[in-house]
């Protein structure tokens, strides 16, 4: 018994680990009636030796699958150990991990066993049992099983905090190449179901206070990067379109880790594209929090991100006419575009300059990366330069200065700018 559950957990956690989503925030479920658990801003309880956040118990219900997606370890043609949890096993693992403060909640995905509805129905039983019998208010992220009926998906949305379904490949062509049984159209259909139901529940709640919450932490999706030959522009334009049309909370980018000898994909032993993945996350942040349009960062002229430097610096060097920015007068929107200045320092700058002109020593203390920012800003005591360094000199200078910091950080935890 003891050994069997250990084996199952090892197999089904191992198979689930390629889904990189770890977020446990964005929901505000309260612990009502002295039950257990709540959700809030999200906590990473530990980090794996690869430096990724561990927030949720991330497992598959089963790794048996009737599909044969070439990029997936659980594909039916792969010769691996298979296992399946019972409903009770998932519930008691979740509760016992949660009670010991190991996790923020459950991330439940699954291979497709028998058919989509059969699988989805079991996942629904798990979340219902957690919520209704265990009085559990912790976080639940549920993967939608492609092709499951609208009724099941909608009902699951009443118990989950977040739902997601993966695009898998950044373009339809890429997906057709590796998983002809799947399509982006199907993903869009599923995302639209959740989006529309969420809108309906939210507007109903405005009239009737007791209307239950529906997927309060919203939807997300994931694309595998580097298995197929898409450009960064293809990837990020797809991301922007999905953010816009399906009101996604997050798009995740998962650098492909070669798992098979399929000649259509990078060979086993090829290094996963970690720097590229990092650059894509930085671009994603610039779009979501720094008010950049994707076309400013990636376009026909620049279809791929610079691997040597972050996309904000690359953009600044391509647009020297915008700089230097005067810290004491410029708009917030312009200040956050300065390489080396993040959201937090920009807010401090805006608040503090009302009390008097800001000087270099104050900016340094506020936590901006002055070494980097100095070439792009002016403040009260900036040295007067006869001639601004031109972009190519500046690029060489900054590259020499920069440490290897951006080369080693992983997506979810990086210091962005």
């Amino acid at each position, binding site marked *: 018994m003891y050994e069997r559950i250990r084996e199952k957990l090892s197999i089904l956690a191992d198979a689930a680990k390629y889904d990189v989503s770890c977020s446990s925030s964005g929901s505000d479920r309260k612990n009502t009636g002295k039950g257990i658990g709540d959700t809030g801003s999200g906590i990473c309880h530990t980090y794996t030796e690869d430096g990724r956040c*561990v927030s949720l118990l991330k497992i598959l219900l089963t790794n048996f699958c009737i599909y044969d997606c070439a990029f997936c370890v659980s594909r039916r043609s792969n010769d691996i150990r298979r296992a399946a949890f019972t409903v009770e096993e998932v519930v008691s693992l979740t509760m016992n991990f949660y009670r010991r403060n190991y996790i923020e909640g459950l991330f439940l995905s699954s291979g497709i066993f028998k058919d989509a509805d059969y699988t989805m129905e079991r996942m629904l039983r798990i979340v219902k049992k957690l919520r209704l019998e265990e009085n559990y208010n912790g976080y639940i992220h549920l993967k939608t099983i492609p092709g499951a009926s609208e009724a099941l998906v909608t009902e699951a949305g009443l118990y989950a905090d977040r739902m997601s379904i993966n695009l898998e490949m950044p373009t339809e062509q890429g997906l057709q190449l590796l998983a002809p049984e799947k399509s982006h159209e199907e993903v869009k259909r599923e995302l639209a179901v959740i989006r529309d139901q969420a809108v309906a529940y939210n507007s109903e709640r405005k009239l009737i206070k007791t209307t239950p919450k529906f997927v309060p932490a919203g939807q997300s999706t994931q694309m595998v990067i580097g298995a197929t030959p898409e450009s960064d522009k293809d990837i990020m334009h797809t991301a922007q379109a999905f953010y816009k049309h399906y009101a996604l909370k997050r798009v995740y980018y998962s650098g492909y880790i070669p798992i098979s000898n399929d000649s259509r994909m990078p060979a086993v032993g090829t290094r996963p594209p970690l720097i590229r993945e990092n650059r894509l996350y930085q671009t994603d942040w610039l779009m979501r929090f720094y008010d950049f349009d994707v076309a400013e960062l990636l376009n026909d002229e620049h279809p791929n991100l610079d691997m040597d430097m972050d996309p904000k610096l690359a953009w600044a060097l391509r647009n020297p006419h915008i700089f230097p920015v005067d810290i004491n007068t410029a708009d917030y929107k312009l200040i956050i575009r300065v390489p080396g200045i993040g959201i937090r320092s920009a807010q401090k700058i805006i608040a503090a300059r009302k009390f008097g002109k800001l000087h270099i020593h104050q900016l340094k203390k506020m936590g901006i990366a002055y070494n980097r920012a100095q070439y792009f800003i002016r403040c009260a005591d900036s040295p007067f330069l006869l001639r601004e360094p031109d972009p190519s000199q500046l690029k060489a200078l900054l590259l020499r200065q920069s440490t290897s910091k951006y080369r080693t950080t992983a997506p979810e935890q990086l210091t962005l700018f």
Partner: protein
Amino acid sequence: MLTDDLPIYIFDGTFYGLLTAIFESYERKHPRIQLCCRETYAPEFFSGHIDIHSDKVKAQRVWRGLQQKVASVHLGHFYKAFFSEQAAIHLALFRYARYIFDHPAGHDFNYGHEDVLAIAQMSQRVHREKHRMEAFVRFKKSGNGLFFAVISPDYNVLPLISKHFRNRYADQPWLIYDERRKYGIHYDLHALHEVTIDFTQEQAMTAQTAVIIDAQEELYTQLWKDYFRSTNIAERRNMKLHIQHVPRRYWRYLTEKEGKL
């Protein structure tokens, strides 16, 4: 800087004590002072000092005064920064309060001012430690149903995290013990209590031998270690990043790192 002739205030190191000192500095017309904790004060170095006796009424008047003059987020910063227990922070908090009271409302946003910025930054560090403890507490279930954990945070964050744990684990009794500061918070399904434990009991807890562990405890400890290993992607190994997020000084308290030190 000449600080020799500034009046020396000796207080008890508590939050109320600090607020009382601020109150008295107005009564005694001392805009600038030196501030020392009674515990660490070595009287032979100084001649003549002012003893501050914590006074709830005076303290609350100062607190209400701050409430009226600073944004609630900054009030939180003031409170959190205090728990850093850093020697310099008491005087910074004192100067901050004087600066706030001596200027029109709104000056709590002047991050160009040394003390305003220092308080914001220290509060952020304390907040990070609070968040880290909310993450790193690892409960073990004992035979009588009590979930207990031992921590040793960099700052005194136990008072700041107890609400989080009470809200989350409302249906299980728990105890979180700060090994460094030798006190704990116990939740008995009804209320929170501060507890101090004598040394032998404390030893028993960290050694985890004398405490009777729940029969299932070993299984879940093992499963958590298994999970921690299985969810790792070996091809992405990055120990530098791992240690940056999970610094070695915390490993002793983390189930998944048992035996790794």
